[in-house]
């Protein structure tokens, strides 16, 4: 109690200095928390966009497909697997896909295109493919059209076709035959930029299986979970449940490895800049504590002369600064929570949309979670604790008679 009393009263003794130091810690904490909130929020948005529009959370392929995608690395989705996927509590939805390439011929021009065959009904439950249609209709909204396709806007411009027109595909079938057929453009997807999506053609899974002579075989099962954070754990769980050595079950972090690595590198860069902020704050705190300790050197000399154990003086200084940082963090938490909440609801709109790892986003949202408060709080208190150690040790080791003479 005595040590706590001394620590509190010493903080109140130099109110303006304590306030200044406290505000510095609080400012750094809030800055750190918001920066972490935006960082988590942005990455969260990116991951959501990536998984919602493209990859899903977990994918199942035949072994080796991810490393070297090939028309011939296909597999059959047995009833048992379908049942296992349907029964899994964390699986919200799943869909099947086929990928291939083909030469696409319009009336005047031709181009190479990447084909992505989807189950129109199931795909809509896993990704936001339906929202990508900028003109025309989605695949499942057409009933009387022969071989309907959605065509990427870039590709559409290249081969100069319109909704309702026919295009011819020439490709290779899984049985080695030449695959060719006519398809009808029912919709345009993408924004016209030269990205992968705008060069793609979407077609119904059944039509693709027929066109590519795949029978009922597929290349990929794409799974949507309750949250992208569950991907690694549930991929492992599904791997165990499916228990099929021929199949490769991977979370989005592995499927989109380049994106994930770029994101992690970016995140580490953020940690460094946040570390620099805390380093500067640490120096400010160190100066304040040192100034405080040197000013009170005479007092520490008297305390030692009266028989105060050196350890008591050490603990008193460390406690004083830890209390100050604890209080600053506590007060700062209200501001940080409020700001993070505000920006998680109404993020910062970007005038020019940013593209990151192939994902375009136009708003920076913060994330208001426990970790965006807890990590900066622990960090702030630890930095204060660490910088208080040196002045505390120095004061505790003071030679009483020398310290008393310094009045």
């Amino acid at each position, binding site marked *: 109690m005595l040590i706590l009393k001394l620590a509190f009263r010493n903080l109140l003794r130099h109110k303006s200095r304590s306030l200044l130091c406290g505000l510095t810690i609080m400012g750094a904490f809030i800055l750190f928390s918001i920066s972490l909130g935006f960082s988590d929020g942005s990455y969260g948005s990116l991951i959501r966009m990536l998984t919602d529009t493209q990859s899903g959370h977990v994918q199942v392929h035949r072994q080796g497909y991810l490393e070297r995608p090939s028309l011939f690395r296909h597999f059959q989705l047995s009833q048992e697997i379908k049942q296992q996927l349907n029964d899994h509590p964390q699986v919200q939805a799943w869909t099947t896909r086929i990928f291939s390439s083909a030469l696409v011929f319009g009336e005047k021009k031709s181009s190479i295109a990447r084909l992505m065959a989807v189950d129109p009904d199931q795909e809509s439950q896993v990704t936001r493919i339906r929202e990508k249609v900028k003109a025309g209709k989605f695949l499942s909204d057409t009933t009387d059209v022969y071989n309907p396709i959605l065509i990427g806007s870039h590709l559409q411009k290249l081969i100069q076709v319109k909704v309702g027109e026919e295009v011819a595909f020439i490709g290779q079938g899984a049985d080695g035959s030449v695959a060719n057929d006519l398809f009808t453009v029912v919709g345009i997807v993408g924004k016209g930029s030269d990205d992968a999506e705008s060069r793609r053609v979407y077609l119904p899974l059944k039509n693709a299986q027929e066109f590519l002579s795949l029978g009922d075989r597929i290349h990929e099962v794409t799974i949507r979970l309750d949250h992208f954070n569950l991907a690694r754990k549930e991929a492992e769980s599904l791997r165990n449940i499916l228990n099929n050595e021929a199949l490769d079950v991977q979370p989005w972090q592995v499927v989109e490895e380049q994106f994930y690595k770029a994101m992690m590198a970016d995140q580490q860069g953020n940690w460094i800049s946040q570390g620099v902020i805390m380093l500067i704050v640490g120096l400010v705190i160190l100066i304040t504590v040192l100034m405080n300790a040197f000013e009170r050197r005479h007092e520490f000399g*008297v305390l030692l002369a009266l028989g105060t*154990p050196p350890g*008591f003086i050490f603990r008193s200084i460390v406690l004083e600064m830890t209390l100050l940082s604890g209080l600053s963090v506590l007060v700062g938490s209200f501001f940080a929570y409020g700001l993070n909440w505000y920006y998680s609801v109404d993020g910062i709109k970007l005038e020019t949309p940013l593209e990151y790892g192939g994902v375009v986003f136009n708003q920076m949202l913060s994330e208001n979670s426990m970790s965006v408060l807890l990590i900066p709080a622990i960090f702030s208190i630890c930095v204060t604790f660490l910088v208080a150690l040196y002045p505390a040790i120095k004061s505790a080791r003071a030679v009483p008679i020398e310290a*008393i003479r310094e009045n």
Partner: protein
Amino acid sequence: MSEIVIASKNVSKHFGEGEAQVHALREVDLDINIGDFAAIVGPSGSGKTTLLNILCGLDKVSSGDIQVSGRSLQDMSGSELAKFRREHIGLVFQAYNLIPVLTVMENIEYVMLLQNVPVAERKERVEKFLTEVGLEGKGNRFPVELSGGQQQRVAIARAMVSHPDIILADEPTANLDSETGVLLLDMMRKFNEEFQMTFVFSTHDPQIMERAKRMVTLTDGHIVSDEIK
């Protein structure tokens, strides 16, 4: 024969090195007995404060030996010396040196808190000493709210309340007016008489010399006289 509480044998202390070396104390032999009310007097620079600092272990001897309450101070570490002072020695400083963030009561109680004296006993002793030093009703004040004389009373109460073997006071009246000085000296003398408390002062103050039962005179670091009145 009186029981010796401090025994200094052949104590020398010098500061600095080589030609700049200053000899503050030269082969001082001094025994302080329980119940002494002794004044160490002498001109400025004669070594009074140095001797007092050495007697309480705040300063180390260059040669010789100091035994306080039967224990040699030479080989003790900083922590051991702090513990020893806490348990055996009460200190009164010229500049009072109260802890500014503690109230009068808390200042008086401070050493007992370090000694882990039970709370009831602490409160009882603090109340008693507050009355003894004439500061009833001022227990909740902070040092800054007290006059110099009142602060020195608190400092004396702080030194005495833990019942140390000896109280060492360095020029305790130097910053006080003569009237307050006399009051405090009479108070200390009263404690000396009533409770056989041992006091050693370093002083220039004739009022202390007048009341001292023993007067040790230092000149150039030598004891030149040791007079028992």
